[in-house]
């Protein structure tokens, strides 16, 4: 029982640190950029005091929605990765490596090009819907294959292949799209948080928060599911229904980020892993909120680098997340091998 109390103190401090980091990075994200704003000025804006029109414009129209979107979408993506890892009982599963992000990307590209060609204004809701069905489509393929391929490595490889196929088709579509739209589309298909509007933020929050809350409410059955399928069933878990929920929610969460920021790599794998290592537990009731917070912090940090490092030009968010995320994946593999020996 002593161990329990010590663990609880540890969880609490870790959550506190993550929360402080989140606030700190949000502030930094709003201040830093091609035009750097002094912190004092930013603070004045948030206190509702008088600031210059330029500062107000930069914060309100560009940086604040972008920062909020990065925070919420990062959390959603990490949670989606956590769900997939639990589902497949493998720490290397994630929406990007399993090709689920790419499936969503393909569907969003199709609907984008279609609407641009017809000069329609594409709503955020339509984008999310397209991304969700794209995710589900890839997920369906992955699930079919997981029934056939016994080994998890086979699953990851076939997932990656689905990802490549979807990406290739997306590239072809983007290439054939109208010249004027290419720049926009091209940026999006590589992954970026730029150009997020308040309308986007509203839709993101409307989808990501309820979905994340739903995941949190699954904490108890997920914990039982970790003990093995037969055990979970015998404890009263409706395993079939739980698995459907997990698939739907992870597709929705990863679809959400693809719709607005394009495919963002490695967050889904790296964040849950780092969070597990930090919290030193596998209890879903701790890990689910921790993954969300961790994902927010990670994405804010990466977006900051993407915007600042080569300012005034931007690098794609996926480039940055890969730099920080891919080594984590390698680390996981090394640890797993050592663990088996």
């Amino acid at each position, binding site marked *: 029982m002593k*161990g329990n109390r010590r663990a609880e103190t540890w969880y609490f401090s870790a959550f506190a640190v993550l929360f402080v980091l989140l606030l700190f990075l949000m502030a930094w994200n709003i201040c830093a950029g091609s035009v750097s704003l002094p912190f004092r000025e930013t603070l004045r804006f948030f206190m509702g005091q008088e600031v210059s029109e330029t500062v107000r414009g930069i914060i309100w129209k560009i940086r604040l929605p972008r920062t909020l979107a990065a925070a919420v979408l990062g959390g959603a993506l990490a949670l989606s990765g956590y769900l997939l890892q639990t589902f497949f*009982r493998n*720490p290397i599963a994630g929406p990007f490596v399993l090709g689920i992000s790419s499936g969503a990307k393909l569907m969003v590209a199709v609907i984008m090009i279609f609407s641009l060609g017809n000069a329609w204004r594409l709503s955020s809701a339509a984008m999310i819907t397209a991304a969700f069905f794209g995710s589900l489509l890839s997920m369906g393929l992955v699930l079919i294959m997981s029934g056939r391929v016994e080994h998890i490595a086979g699953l990851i490889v076939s997932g990656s292949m689905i990802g490549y196929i979807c990406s290739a088709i997306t590239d072809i579509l983007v290439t054939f799209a109208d010249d004027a739209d290419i720049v926009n589309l091209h940026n999006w298909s590589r992954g970026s948080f730029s150009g997020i509007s308040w309308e986007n933020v509203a839709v993101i929050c409307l989808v990501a928060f309820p979905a994340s809350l739903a995941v949190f*409410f699954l*904490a*108890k059955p997920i*914990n*039982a599911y*970790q*003990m*093995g*399928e*037969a*055990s979970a*069933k*015998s*404890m*009263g*878990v*409706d395993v079939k229904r739980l698995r459907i929920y997990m698939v739907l929610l992870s597709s929705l969460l990863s679809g959400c980020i693809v719709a607005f920021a394009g495919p963002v790599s490695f967050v889904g794998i790296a964040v849950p892993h780092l969070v*597990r290592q930090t919290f*030193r*537990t*596998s*209890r879903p*009731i701790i890990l689910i909120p921790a993954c969300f917070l961790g994902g927010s912090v990670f994405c804010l940090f990466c977006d900051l680098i993407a915007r600042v490092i080569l300012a005034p030009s931007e690098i794609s968010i996926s480039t940055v997340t890969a730099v920080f995320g891919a080594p984590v994946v390698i680390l996981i593999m090394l640890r797993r091998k050592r*663990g088996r020996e």
Partner: protein
Amino acid sequence: MKNHFFHTEDLAVGYHGTCVAEEIRIWGDRGRILTLIGPNGAGKSTILKTLAGLLPTVHGTVWLDGKRLEQIPRKELAKKIAVVFTEKPSGEFLTCREVVEAGRYPYTGRFGLLSARDKEAVSEAMELVAVSDLADRPFDCLSDGQRQRVMLARAVCQEPQMLLLDEPTSHLDIKYKLEFLTILREMAGKKQISVVMSLHELDLAERVSDMLACVKNGRVEHFGTPEDIFVPGYMEQLFGMLQGSFDVGSGTAEFSAARGEPKVFVIAGGGTGKQTFWRLQRERIPFAVGILSENDVDYPTAHATALHVVREAAGEQNHAGEPDWAGQQNHAGDPDRAGQQNHAEEQDQTEQYTSDELLKEAKLWIDRCDHVICCGDRAVQANKYNKELLRYACKVGKMAEK
């Protein structure tokens, strides 16, 4: 049937409506252990899954505590039945206590937070299976034996009335096998749990079970007490053993005898011979043994491994009480097994032998062999004949240097 805690009624089990095993009529009581034995792939796991309510029946009914199993709501069933199957919890940093705590699932609220009562049940379960000192250790770092006990604690924590285990001792070494089954036996009695499990270790199954069900070829071939099931010859038949045999007396398996012309004659008795028999058998050297009383400790092993045993009858009561169904099947399908003729026939022969004839027969076997091995002084003193045999062997110059 009705007064048992659970029973099955003309049950057929399988996947997607395809039968794996049928005509299953078994029952079990609280505080008692029912063990399923039988060859691999006979359907033991499928039966267990069906009894646990994890798999729908193909047809027939499982009655649990006077109710049809499929009509008991999932949540209620979770408080009645727990399982320990061959699966492993996954999750880094998962501690043993967390694994055990998961067993409280049916009793906790929406977020699975534990009440004082739940925590009490967890510590009690861990104490019962002797894993309290492992509570804060990561589950991944345990030995197989410890893991299996933690899994048992998780199931116990569910406070079930019935516990189903699929080959719980499979990957454990002998120490942990005994430990696990001892704990299981105690727990069944103390908590009045009806235990149903599958086991591969026949010797342990015979000792630990109150009832046994022999599953073979998609049927429960026999269902009864260990005394009913463990009769000479039946294990060989159940498992379709063509090589070797199962000694009911000691509950151990023996490899089959080497065939051919006898090369070695072994003078044994009083428990001196086993190692020599096994060594010769490993080398695949056909050998004869003599003279052994049927009551001798060495007799069962000699009988199973030697080409021939020159034996002194122990009396008529020896094979009495052997049921017909086992006797008829004795060594069926293996007519050319040397040295193991039909029991009855052999018995008649020996009973007519006088001491002189017995000695004469043994000497004839010595003459056929190239060497004679004597298993020490105790072998010579085991009966009144062996001293004479040793002298004869020396005389003909066949005594082997050890």
